[in-house]
């Protein structure tokens, strides 16, 4: 059993005047261990909502969801929280660092929540910050970090517990090319560790590093493209253009 994520007919509606908006509209999806999947599509097509549903941050109105073979769509808030500790890592578009904790305290938090020792948590957090080039900013609070630094701290926090799956929403949106390259190298290591990665991105270069590209529109997956090794960003853009989507 290599499927890390399996979603069947996931639906998420939001109330609106008239009929409710179907932000996610019957999505079927599987993600294998060690697989990287990119999700692209125009703004408001439901990419972030899909990510939230897969990580239990929102509840589906319909459909089934399995994580590591366990059905999880009916879990309580507490059960989801405990499950996320070791199984799900999030990278949010808006970073969502805890603004009362320093960079290193943010990164070590998932280890502490999982019951790890403070010493081990601090060591692993510092290693990751070192790799991402922000170790010298470890003692700073988030409001003293640049957007790129915050992004890298958020990535380190998502990876520190080596979760089954990393759900990343625009993980390189605020980074320059050099920092983007470092993040992508880290993501490549996830594959070797048999960790799954689902990336929502507008960046064709980031999307092109995935095994598969999902294209969403109006809450539904309208295309799946298997990307071979060495698929270029241009090829990704071309496949999107064929579908009339945004890159």
């Amino acid at each position, binding site marked *: 059993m290599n499927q890390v994520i399996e979603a069947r007919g996931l639906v998420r509606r939001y109330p609106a005047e008239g009929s409710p908006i179907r932000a996610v509209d019957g999505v079927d999806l599987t993600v294998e261990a060690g697989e990287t999947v990119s999700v692209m599509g125009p703004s408001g097509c439901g990419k972030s*909502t899909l990510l939230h549903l897969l990580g239990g*941050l929102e509840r589906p109105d319909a459909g089934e969801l399995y994580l590591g073979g366990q059905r999880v769509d009916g879990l309580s*808030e507490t059960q989801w*929280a405990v499950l*996320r500790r070791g199984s799900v890592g999030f990278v949010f578009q*808006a970073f*969502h660092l805890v603004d*009362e904790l320093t960079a290193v305290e943010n990164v070590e938090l998932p280890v502490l929540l999982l019951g790890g020792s*403070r010493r081990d948590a601090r060591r692993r957090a510092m290693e990751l910050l070192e790799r991402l080039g922000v170790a010298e900013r470890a003692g700073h*609070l988030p409001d003293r970090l640049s957007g790129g630094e915050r992004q890298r701290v958020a990535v380190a926090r998502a990876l520190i517990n080596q979760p089954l799956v990393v759900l990343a929403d625009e993980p390189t949106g605020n980074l320059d090319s050099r920092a983007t390259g470092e993040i992508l190298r880290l993501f490549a290591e996830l594959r070797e560790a048999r960790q799954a990665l689902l990336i929502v991105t507008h960046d064709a270069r980031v999307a092109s590093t995935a095994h598969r590209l999902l294209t969403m529109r109006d809450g539904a997956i309208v295309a799946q493209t298997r990307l071979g090794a060495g698929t270029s960003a241009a090829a990704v853009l071309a496949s999107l253009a064929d579908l009339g989507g945004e890159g």
Partner: protein
Amino acid sequence: MRSLRLAGRLAARNLRRRPGQALLLLLTLTIATGVLGVAMSLYGSADQPWNRVWRATDGFHVSFNVYHPPDEPGDRALVERLRRRASQLTRAPEVVGVGGPWTHLYGRIQIAGGDEDLTAELRDPGPYQVDQPLVTAGQWLGQGDGVVLESGLAATLDAAPGDTVTLQGRPFPVRGVAMTVSRGRFPLSRPAQVWVTPQTGRRLRQLGMTPEGFELQVRLADPADAAAFADAHRSLEVSEGSSSLIAFLETWQHRRAESHSDIDILAGTLFAVGTLIAILTIATAAVLIAGRMAAQIRQVGTLKAVGVTPRQVVLVLLVEHLAIAAAATAIGLGIGRLLAPRIAATSVTLLGTPEPPPLTWTRVAIVAAVAFAVVLLGTVRPALRGIRQSTLRSLVSGARPPRRPGRLARLVANLGVPLPGVLGLRSAWRRPGRLLTNAAGLTLGVAMIVVALALRDSLELLAHTPPEPGHAASDAAVTVLYDQIRAIILGTAGLLLLLGTINAVIVATFAARDAARNHAVLRALGATPRQTVTALIVSQLGACAIAVVAGIPLGLGLWSLMDGGDLPPVRLPAALLLLAVAVPVAFAGIVGVPARLLARQPVAPLLAYE
């Protein structure tokens, strides 16, 4: 002028958009202004009825009283000398009317099975140029035996014309009941007073009543000259020496001020209570406004970004809160005028129906000043902070950035405190301004509860003080006054508790709102709802602990200032111990409510929460 109009428009819009917060601030302010309004309206509410009786009886402008203790023989020669010298008063050019001198006899009157001190004033049937007592039932003195009772005494005895009263152990018929401003109403004013003819006086002397002095009263061409007239004749006064005899001059204004001490005590108590509540309201308003400012920093940034000047930003906040203060002032004064006559009507010293005094600008200004001071003190600091922050920073941040980590937080982390506790303590430690603001509000709340407990305890002790022998009736009247004050104290304790609770609810709500995004992030990382609730409670308990540690001694300090050594010592250790435990438990419970409500919500919407 244009700035003011713009500020007015924005303030009106803010008030419409956030009616709940505006109402909460209005409620807390109105509690303070309402109590002050009642106190203001109570002061002087007995003056109008007193003035009516004073006019109707041709009341005195200056009175000369000579008194010597009944159980001492007194200096008969000195009394006679004073009587002769007093005649110089009657010859003064300002004097247009003279009453007396009227001799006073001391004796005993039977009331409710016991005896009370009695003064019998000897009067011929009259009429008099000064102080013609206002007969409210029966007849004034005339031929034959009988007494006229002072109206308070008649009420206490439940006696009417035709009944008999027992003076010196003998029955005397009641001819009438009368009212005067020359004496306070029995039983709060002692001794009891009756008017008798010289003929009856002779009989009373045979029964053992003894002379205790006399009173001479004059009316002047201009009553406003009373104080100057009295000052000009101070040489008549006797207040020391080998004799116990005292002789003193008194103006009608002084007698009026002294005539309703129970109402003044109530008003004074309410005034002190209103001031204490106002102090507490400053903290409530500061917490409310600071919490709102934290949420409105973005709006301040937007206003500044579109060209609104810092002065205009402050104006918007001030106009908004001053409007609330103005409303609270008006409502408070209205409440005062409505309630004060009802409270004053319970007075045992009142001559007739109470009337609130005219609403002078001074009275309005005092209540308004308190309300305005509260909002100014609560608004200025957070407003100035919002202005000093750069426009860009205001636009990107939801609240003030936290402080750098401290040694204490590290120490707590190293002590093995569970993670939610560590997170809560870090949150509190890194926002010291918010911690201290919350702690200040809660500290005043705790201090006020301590004061209320001390007052209640002290009054209980007073109420259980054994009565003086021979004063059962007047002690009963004092008990009525204590009951009224106790009711005020208990009401105050209730109001303080309400304000403290409102304070705690405001602190808890804003704390939960402030922490909502951070706690959603924690849950996204794997913290359970229970852990986030615990973290929030721990983060707020620091302020509560400061409040308990600082509030109890502050309350005791305030009490010792108010007490002045006049009241019996209080026995509070048990109550204080209970308070020290109950306040944090209650506060944790209050904080837990919004924290749990937030913890029940899915994470994603909270991540977008501002």
